[in-house]
């Protein structure tokens, strides 16, 4: 359940704060691929949580 709470927290937090992150993307000097890097990190985090869940359920 802790894993789910963490996920809920991340997604809701991300939802509320995403405009702040987004405003930074359009700033000159910021690498154009930054949003995709952040997105990739989120996917990696989800994958890690999924692996952890599988281990927990064994």
């Amino acid at each position, binding site marked *: *359940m802790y*894993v*789910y709470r963490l*996920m*809920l927290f*991340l*997604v809701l937090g*991300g*939802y*509320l704060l*995403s*405009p*702040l992150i*987004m*405003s930074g*993307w*359009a700033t*000159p*000097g910021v*690498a*154009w*691929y930054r*949003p*995709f890097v952040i*997105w*990739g990190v*989120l*996917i990696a985090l*989800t*994958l890690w949580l*999924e692996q952890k*869940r599988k281990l*927990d*359920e064994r």
Partner: protein
Amino acid sequence: MNASLAGMLGVGGGFLLLLWLCALAVDRGWISTRITRHPLVYALALGVYASAWAIYGSLELAATSGYGYLTYYLGVAGAFLLAPVLLVPIQRLVRTHQLASLADLFAFRYRSRWVGTLITLVSLLAVLPLLALQVQTMGNAIYLMTGAASPATLALVFCVLLALFDMTFVGRRRIDGRHDSLLAVMALSSLIKLSAMLGLGGFALFAVFDGPADVQAWLEGPGQAFQASVVQTDPAHWRSLLLLFFAGLLMPHIFHLVFAETRSRHTLLQASWALPLFLLLMALPVPLILWAGQRLGADAPLGTAYLAFGLSESVGLQALAFLAGLAATSATTLLIALALSGMLVNHVFLVAHPPEAHHDLYRWLRWLRRGLVTAVVLGGWLFYRIVGVHHDLTSLGLAAFVGMAQCLPGLLALLYWPGANRRGMLAGLASGILVWLVGLWLPLLTGLPALVLIPPGGEALAGEPTWYTVTLVSLASNALVLIVVSLATRTSEGERAAAEACSVDAVIRPKRLPLEAANGEAFKASLAHALGESVAAREVDHALDDLGLSPQDGRPYVLRRLRDRLQANLSGLMGPSVAQDIVDRYLPYRQDGPGATEDIHFVESRLEAYRSRLTGLARELDGLRRYHRRTLTRLPVGLCAFGEDGELLMWNDALARLSGIEGASVIGSRRESLPAPWGELLGRSIAAPDSHLYKQPVTLGGTTRYLSLHKAALEGSDSDPGGMVILVEDHSEMKWLEDELVHAARLASIGQLAAGVAHEIGNPITGISSLAQNLRYETDDPEVLETTEQIQQLTDRVSRIVSSLVGFAHGGRHLAGRELAPVGIAEVVDEAIHLIHLARSREDVRFDNRCPAAERVEGDAQRLLQVMVNLLGNARDASGPGDGVTIEAVPEGSGLRISVTDEGAGIDPSMRDHLFEPFTTTKPPGEGTGLGLPLVYSIVAEHHGSLEVESPPPGSERGTRISLWLPRHQKEGETPR
């Protein structure tokens, strides 16, 4: 405009042929199920979400809103990141109750067929703009590729081809309620569009630009002019877009694929990272294509959405842009038509015209769905012709997503608020839909200005875009009305039960009631009234197969499971409302039976199945439950439990061993239907006024066993189930020991009696014998001498009897206080043979002593000699002239088995059970005292040995074998064998 029309039709036809071949290969099993059922195939199939909007619409949005285009991908990716708390509970419901669509789920939860109908109509209205978007992009793409004058006609040809292709899926047999081939086709489409998009992105990055650094340099240099025209998305708009695309999950085709086609929870959780990854790869090329087009100053006659076509004059690159769009539009249109036709059948047609006993219900349903598939696809084309051509992709897409988002409050209430009821949901949905219709949908259709209903206090919304205002107002009014009406109105019992079944934290307490139908055959007969004979038989057989049951099984538990399974299967066929109506009407519960009680066995079996999903305290409690369950199951005493209605709930391992009946075959039965003698025996215990029934004789496996039964009532209260628990103890061994004890006590009392009699008779007899002796010396009269001789012979006989009686009476005391010594058994037998021969009687009987000289037993030599003399004497007396008596000794366990075998007439079976009782003899009167064998028994018992009689011995037709088992003498250093 380089490609020919025929070439484009060839690409389109070839693409559809490829999809058809893929479906065929999966259906025929040419592709291994390990591949087709792999979680990654499912995740790729979910890529159908990336419709034509993802290929063309995103470019349009990226050009005007910059990174705002990402909301389309991030919204649904967020929903998948929440898979464990949002998607998995819905998947559990959908799988348990065989629900195939959002309308099914709503109709099930809010217990109303009209709710299902309303959701279906909302879905239909919402997806029409989305379908129009697909058709519009396809028409425009064909126009851009060929320059054809009538792209709408070409789009119509394409739609007809799609409808025909879609029909093949309607007729396909379903495996486990899912289409493997449909998933494979969707996955292949996703793979093609992803490859095409990555190809376009790669061209932009490495052919137009010189890698990522060059892109950065261009953006900070010449590209700034283009970036200046981009209006960055307002934070509030960004959040609203995220929410709308989050609700994209509720689109009929996405819902169908995510929940109805998913193979397992594991598959869905794998998709929680795999789908966002797919969407990331789809989104990445979008800005690259846009910037490449801007850098090249690419021509885009139909708007920035189709910029990819202008990146190069190369037909190959344009074909790639066309193929990406073709794969996206085909997959989306196919799946929308398929999912929506199912919803229309279940929630509009079958509700309006309940299925009569059609001659062939399956055929009728199949053709109905095929017709609806065609109608949906052509409806999309028609909407495009009337509406789509006048609007851009963003307007069409947003209209669809805002409409579908109206189901979001109802869905969240379904999962997390058991207090929500039908009236609240309907009122909320109606208010939201009204705002959406007048604010977005109708203006789209009619071209009239949008009527945005801004509530008092919402004046700040006045300058906002219409889509944003409509989204906020419709969702707020929807949620608010749902809450207020639900709180203000009464919730029905049915809704409350369904709410418990749907709620994430539900405590599901299924009840059990007896059914009127007695077995599977009766189910078929009842359902035939609704479905026709053949369909009813097929559905019942299918359900029995699913559960692995026999049609003759009449256990109430089994019948309830069969009813549930039938309802679920029928729900998959014709929706939950119709399925429930049919099952309630034709498979009713008995009204005269006992009241509803909790179905403990079902709860347990479900807990077993869901174990891996329990976490935290629930898991701890489940561990405790398993421990107690195991304790009862492994209890070395037989245990069974009955519910209040007399249904068997538990039958533990010990009882299964004792009865030879496996628990799985009887649990769920009524007591009366248990195999003999259990039904009657347990009934006797339940009916008895006393809590205990001792040593009830029962014939089990041909032998008589003595069972003791102890019962206790499981006191029922409002919350705890009642019933009865019965312990069954096998007391057969104890009964045998008790019988032995009684026998021994009888022997002891006879011994005491014999000792007294011997003492009283002994003295007078000695006197008589002495007087007779004296008389012989005082007379020469031959008659008197003969008489005295006879008197002496008779007194001798009486003396022998008395001596035997005394010997028997003293049995058991002789060894007390005496040390046992090693006794050579061969020597004892030799001495006994010698003594027997001294009697000069029956000298024609041969004795053969085969005992090994080295074998010794622990005992008293004199007492054992007495045993052997008695046994050999009996053997001799029973033998005929020339017969042999064999004495053998073989080690057995820690002792020695000594057997005396004769070839005589044997022992009458009627005498065999009384052989060791005093005064029992097979000899003629005057020849035997009947004390020999009781004495042998007594002495052998003193030596802690045992005695067996076989008459005739195994392998012989006549004779008797008496075997003694005596503890063997262990030499020092020798271990017992």
